[in-house]
């Protein structure tokens, strides 16, 4: 199957990796365009699926957490993957994963953010969520597009 991002970049995804995208894997479509997901995010989401393509299944994250370190809670591949992503991008990863139905990626991202928040005072949490760079109007619009498509309004489908 091919995924086309918001900025018109095409990504191929094989069937093994596609099985994790539960909301699109059972369709007969060959190409899907995601008007609300930019190429950077889509690339990373597909990378996650490809990391696990040879796994029978991805284990669920057990609670309570053994420790505050992501490497102690999830497997090494997942920990490596999530720690390589910019913190500000993780919310976009969650939205994209929700759209595609990749529940394990949603959980992984949420756990990572939860661990970052855990044990911190309100002041430190405030600093954590502040972006280091100013958001441009283009980025604002892109974010609105992501929100709208996450509500299922803007997926354009090509046969």
């Amino acid at each position: 199957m091919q995924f086309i991002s918001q900025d018109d970049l095409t990504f191929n995804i094989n069937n093994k990796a596609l099985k994790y995208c539960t909301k699109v894997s059972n369709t007969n479509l060959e190409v899907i365009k995601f008007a609300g997901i930019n190429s950077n995010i889509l690339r990373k989401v597909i990378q996650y699926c490809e990391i696990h393509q040879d796994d029978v299944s991805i284990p669920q994250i057990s609670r309570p957490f053994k420790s505050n370190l992501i490497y102690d809670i999830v497997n090494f591949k997942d920990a490596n993957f999530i720690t390589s992503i910019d913190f500000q991008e993780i919310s976009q990863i969650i939205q994209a994963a929700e759209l595609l139905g990749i529940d394990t990626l949603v959980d992984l991202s949420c756990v990572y953010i939860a661990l970052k928040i855990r044990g911190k005072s309100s002041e430190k949490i405030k600093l954590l969520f502040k972006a280091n760079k100013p958001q441009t109007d283009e980025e604002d619009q892109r974010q609105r597009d992501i929100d709208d498509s996450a509500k299922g309004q803007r997926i354009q489908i090509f046969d």
Partner: protein
Amino acid sequence: MLQTLQNELTTLQTNSKQQDQRLENLYMSFQEIYDLKKKLDNPSSTMHNMLNYVRPDIFHQIFIFLDTKQIFRFRLVSKKANYVVKLMLPKQIFIFQQQIADQQNEIQLKIQDIQGIGEDQSQQQVMKAAIDGVSRLTKNHIVELKSLARPPELVEKIINLVCMTLDPTFKIQKDNWKECQKYLSRVNFLELIATLDISSINDKQLQQLEQVNSIQEQQAAAMSTVAKFILIFLKAVFEIRQSKLYMTQNAIKQLESKIMKEEQLIKKFEKIIK
């Protein structure tokens, strides 16, 4: 002469210009530093905050992995954070109410379960015999035991276990005879043992109490009369506490405690929503 003066004047003017330039550069550096400090102390409104552009339901998914205390701390971050938390509270109240209903059903089932079970007569007889044994002990026996500076290891172990049984906060450790002596000093020590409520023993205490099974009565008797009778008592307590009746009663107590905590949280959440 005039030429010399002219040259000197030119040199002075050049130097003056260079100094002016240096001064200007210094002022610019100060301005940069001042601007940087201002940005750090008062972030510009064009700086973007994740709380403002990430949907609240994304945060609700994150909150699943946080405890209530942490979520309340998150509320204090900003008005927006407070709003995000408030949005999820009605759903959380609903979840707690469902949990309470399920737990109450479970309690009813457990109560029905134990209604059919009477107290095991043989166990009761064993317990009675154990209490009789402890009743034979006098204050002098306890004073004698307490006066030992370094009792045998087995005796210390048995006294540790009885202190832990009487007090869930007591920590069993090696070489804490001084702590045991404090308990032995209590005026009503024997009375506390004789009137112990077996249903108040929690699972953690029960787990520790299992150690009595590895001690033989003859071993204890050879070292101390007090240790022997207390060991017999602890063995009887362990056996009865493990019975279905007491296990179920303990489970009911734990469920009731959970329900109480959840009801308190619901009240707290309702206050916040108002």
